[in-house]
């Protein structure tokens, strides 16, 4: 799995972009998007997903269930 940003909720504040340890977040068409191929849900870096922790709008950075759960390399 990876995180995704609910575009209709995003204030485009960019706070998540700087916090992402995987540089997976970028601005597209006025809101921010997470590249699911790069997102590790912050596993291996932090206890909590940084985008979720810093986002000013609740339930805006959410798990995208269409992707398999990230597995840290053994």
């Amino acid at each position, binding site marked *: 799995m990876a995180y995704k940003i609910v575009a209709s909720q995003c204030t485009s*504040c*960019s*706070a998540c972009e*700087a*916090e992402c340890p995987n540089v997976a977040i970028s601005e597209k068409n006025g809101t921010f998007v997470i590249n699911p191929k790069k997102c590790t849900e912050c596993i291996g870096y932090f206890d909590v997903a940084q985008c979720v*922790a810093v986002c*000013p*709008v609740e339930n805006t950075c959410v798990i995208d269930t269409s992707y398999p759960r990230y597995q840290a390399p053994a």
Partner: protein
Amino acid sequence: MNDLASLDAFQADKAEPIDNIMQQIAEHKGCGTSGGSGKASCGSSAGAGDMPPEIWEKVKNHPCYSEEAHHHYARMHVAVAPACNIQCNYCNRKYDCANESRPGVVSEKLTPEQAAKKVLAVASAIPQMTVLGIAGPGDPLANPGKTFKTFELIAEAAPDIKLCLSTNGLALPDHVETIKKFNVDHVTITINMTDPDVGAEIYPWVFWKHRRVTGKEAAKILTDRQLQGLEMLTANGILCKVNSVMIPGINDSHLVTVNREVKSRGAFLHNIMPLISAPEHGTVFGLNGQRGPSAQELKALQDSCEGEMNMMRHCRQCRADAVGLLGEDRSAEFTTDKIMEMDVSYDLASRQAYQEKVEEQRVAKVEARNEKLKELAGEESDIKILVAVATKGGGLINEHFGHAKEFQVYELSAGGAKFVGHRRVDLYCQGGYGEEDSLETIVRAINDCAAVFVAKIGHCPKEDLIKAGIEPVDQYAHEFIEQSAIAYFKDYLARVKTGEIEHVVRGDADIRQGAYAPV
């Protein structure tokens, strides 16, 4: 106007909280402490004679640090800092309306390069624009790369412009060295509490060391960082203003303690602002019905903190992309699209020439006031009254009653005329309000004033004001405010003495929430 009758009920509603604050004032007995750098003899409203020359040099053309300067000089904010590292219950980042004016609100964000071009464009069009601030819409120090890049570009292109920033303080201690390096000599920290129990009711969380921290723990981290940052700045000779939002029932009495704490750490100026909490803004406080203070509650708290500390009362709680004199917003003239098309040449010489003219007018204003003040000497009276003034700037009574978007409020006493606040009366963006109600809105906003000074006023509003007990005064049209106010007060005392009029203590007034319409 029948609606005016409802003012009695309105005043009765507000009576009790004032009593509470008066009680706190009595208990507090001034904010002076033995700590800190001694008496800062430089009231925000004071002029050159009242403060050390090096401080005067820093504030004399900074509208946000000098009440006196705000009549003459303009500022602008560039919205290069969208990210924030804390959440406040009075802020909702989702809400934006071009007609809305309050901190944290912005119509478009800029890159540092766009911001630098905007600054040059505005500086060329508004030669009295002397100050560039970064105030968000998030926290400048949560976006350090963008913030300091902007400062760097502006310092290169327009070295005469003063740089300042406004922060919640969480990241401040990490950036003091950089702030110093870029010659940012004015920093504002928003400090709403020094007690984590109080803070827990204002801040749901802070983002700290890669975690979202909540409750008292969050507030403790925030207050520690704010006070540490303040101490570091003042130790480095950087002028600090502290902003506090007055939230009745949550931190109103506590702000007296905050005032003492920040003064002892060398803050130059304390700005206590009323909470903005209209439900349509969708903030936590807006939605849970938390009210803001009345005009007299705010003034009472500001008065109680005045002691030895400078209080700012001319803050307009502007947008993070505001442009112009305080009280006006010309941001709509300088949108990114318009700026990118502009051919800007930065003419330092013509800016300086214009500012010299402003200085001349300013000196004339102060002389006129001092001259008039001599006539009050020897008057012994405990009478104090408030008067409202319609002004477009320059320290003059130069606005038509019907065109005024705000009134400046002066307190008149045997000691002279003192600026004590301003009241917004613009009706824009207030759904459901028509012309019919506009006079009632104005009366509510200046209901604590004995008179209103205008350049001109129509017959109808004149009569309605008299009915509401507010004397409309147009005889000082286009003259200096303070000089005229002192002359009026002298006459007022004389009329009270002869029994021509009776001095009555006026009631409370409303602080308007919501929007300034962009010009």
